């Protein structure tokens, strides 16, 4: 076989050179994604009841003194935190979804699949109904703390069960689904005993919203994202190898069970931190990775950044839309995310099929 091809191989350009051209296209599309994200971020900052120009915003960010006192409050305390949180939460959910879809070998996997979102909802519902602020806990952080504890509890429960019964893809997904149903029932039970005010608050929480963005929340979510990212980067080759199949990855020396455990722990922390401040935003973690997969393939060196950018863009565009549909009213982001994400996803899917 080798003899038949030696001559042809010498004449053809080297595969490494062809691959560089191939990679160039991927980097080009990553740049396009980045530009789309930056554009949606800037428009998000500009858009709102108080009219600001592009120049005002950019000039104000560079030199805050160029803005009046009221404008400084609008830009730095309202618009920027809102826009930055949208990007960071979207990026975090995009990253979490991409990693989860890889280690569970399931394109339908997202942080919702493992019941993390539902556990966060249960934690938030408990905090809302049982009003823990009277016990001296900081008022703004009671719901996020309970939501975070719930989400993290879910991931530890799945890890524990998977550890007992063997962390295969099937067992993890099955435990996740069982957990979703159990948590749903518990949330319904709490809603049943809740008074009308608490019930309204729980329902609003499940719709997901970025409305109460602060720099403190951004620092916490951003910190979790930056903490987890190096571990993801360390695992990119192993995760790419895993896409060939579990037996293949094992034969390359990848400890698949350990990798799955570590990734699930990371996904649990990322999702728990993200949703604890915003409520349920379920769609980004599912569709962001799909968009990245269609655009960049499954080499995780491009798939992971693509998924981060796609997630950030979806939530940024959704948050922009949420305040633009009805002036003066912010429609919950969880709703808008799905309304924007689905058409975008379908367009990409159909265009891929046509090229196919």
């Amino acid at each position: 076989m080798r003899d038949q091809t030696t001559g042809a191989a010498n004449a053809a350009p080297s595969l490494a050179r062809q691959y560089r051209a191939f990679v160039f296209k991927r980097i080009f599309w990553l740049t396009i994604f980045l530009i789309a994200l930056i554009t949606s971020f800037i428009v998000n900052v500009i858009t709102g009841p108080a009219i600001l120009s592009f120049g005002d915003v950019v000039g104000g960010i560079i030199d805050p003194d160029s803005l009046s006192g009221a404008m400084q409050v609008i830009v730095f305390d309202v618009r920027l935190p809102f826009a930055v949180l949208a990007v960071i939460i979207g990026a975090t959910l995009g990253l979490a979804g991409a990693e989860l879809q890889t280690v569970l070998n399931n394109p339908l996997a997202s942080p919702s699949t493992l019941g993390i979102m539902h556990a966060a909802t249960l934690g938030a519902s408990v905090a809302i109904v049982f009003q823990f602020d009277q016990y001296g806990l900081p008022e703004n952080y009671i719901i996020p703390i309970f939501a975070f504890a719930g989400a993290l509890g879910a991931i530890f429960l799945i890890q524990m069960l998977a550890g007992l019964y063997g962390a295969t893809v099937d067992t993890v997904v099955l435990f996740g689904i069982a957990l979703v149903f159990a948590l749903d029932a518990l949330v319904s039970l709490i809603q049943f005993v809740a008074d009308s005010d608490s019930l309204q608050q729980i329902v609003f929480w499940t719709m997901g919203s970025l409305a109460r963005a602060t720099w403190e929340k951004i620092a916490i979510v951003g910190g979790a994202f930056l903490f987890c990212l190096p571990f993801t980067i360390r695992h990119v080759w192993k995760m790419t190898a895993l896409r060939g199949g579990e037996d293949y990855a094992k034969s390359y020396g990848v400890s698949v069970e350990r990798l799955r455990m570590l990734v699930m722990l990371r996904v649990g922390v990322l999702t728990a931190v993200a949703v604890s401040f915003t409520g349920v935003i379920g769609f980004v973690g599912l569709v962001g990775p799909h968009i990245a997969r269609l655009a960049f393939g499954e080499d995780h060196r491009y798939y992971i950044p693509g998924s981060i950018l796609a997630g950030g863009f979806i939530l940024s565009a959704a948050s922009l839309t949420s305040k633009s549909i009805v002036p003066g009213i912010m429609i919950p982001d969880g709703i808008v995310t799905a309304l924007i994400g689905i058409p975008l996803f379908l367009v990409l899917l159909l265009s891929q099929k046509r090229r196919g």
Partner: protein
Amino acid sequence: MTKLDIRDLVIAHGKNTILTDITLGSFAPGSVVGVLGPNGVGKSSFLRSLAGLAPYGGSVTLDGDENRKLSHNQRARKVAYLPQTLPQATNLVAYEAVISACRAVRHDLPHDHVEELAERVFDRLNIRHIAFQPLNRMSGGQRQMVGLAQILVREPDIMLLDEPTSALDLRWQLGVLDVVRNLVKDKQGLALIALHDINLAMRHCDTLILFGEGGVLSHGTPDTAMTPDILSRAYHVEGRIETCSQGSPFIIVDGLDKRSAANNLQGD
């Protein structure tokens, strides 16, 4: 070169013992060993145990170190295992699949060297034309070639290949086994290849291991390990051993042996 040694090997699925008392000792450097036997006899389990992917009793050593005590990465640097299943049909192009397989084991290798290894394996297997095709747009045979490239790119000392030609046509079957054989001879390494095609095994392998129910039925060079009597005991077929124009032995199967034929008639 890494030395594989197998003594008193026992393989079980739960409480069900599949293979027992397998002592093959060590293999001569540069050997291509065919692993044969009827369906379900334990060929794949045998290879998976050697690859450290399934538990076993007894002793399997690599250069004197007990296989089960090695870390995943230590083992993968010496032994490359090709699973029976094809690589998944994912949106990963063949070139990426091959370099990621190499990188997952040898993340310390310089990038240029990995590219050189990849270039070499695509040439060896004559699959440059599918290097930038995603796996989800390939035929089963093409995916099997990519799976092989993922193994061969590491140029391992020991290759464990579980039915590496199951999805390939005749030309590619011969070509792939020639490539494996040449690589093993060049490196003075070792390949254990599970095959269903006995003639292919007899043509390309220096040694055959034929598993029967519970253990090794025969072990040796193709002309000693495969006789009409052994063929009948292993597969319940009647056959003859002939010699082809190239001098390789090959089997002509005349039909089921008398016992199997009687069972079939009763079944009718």
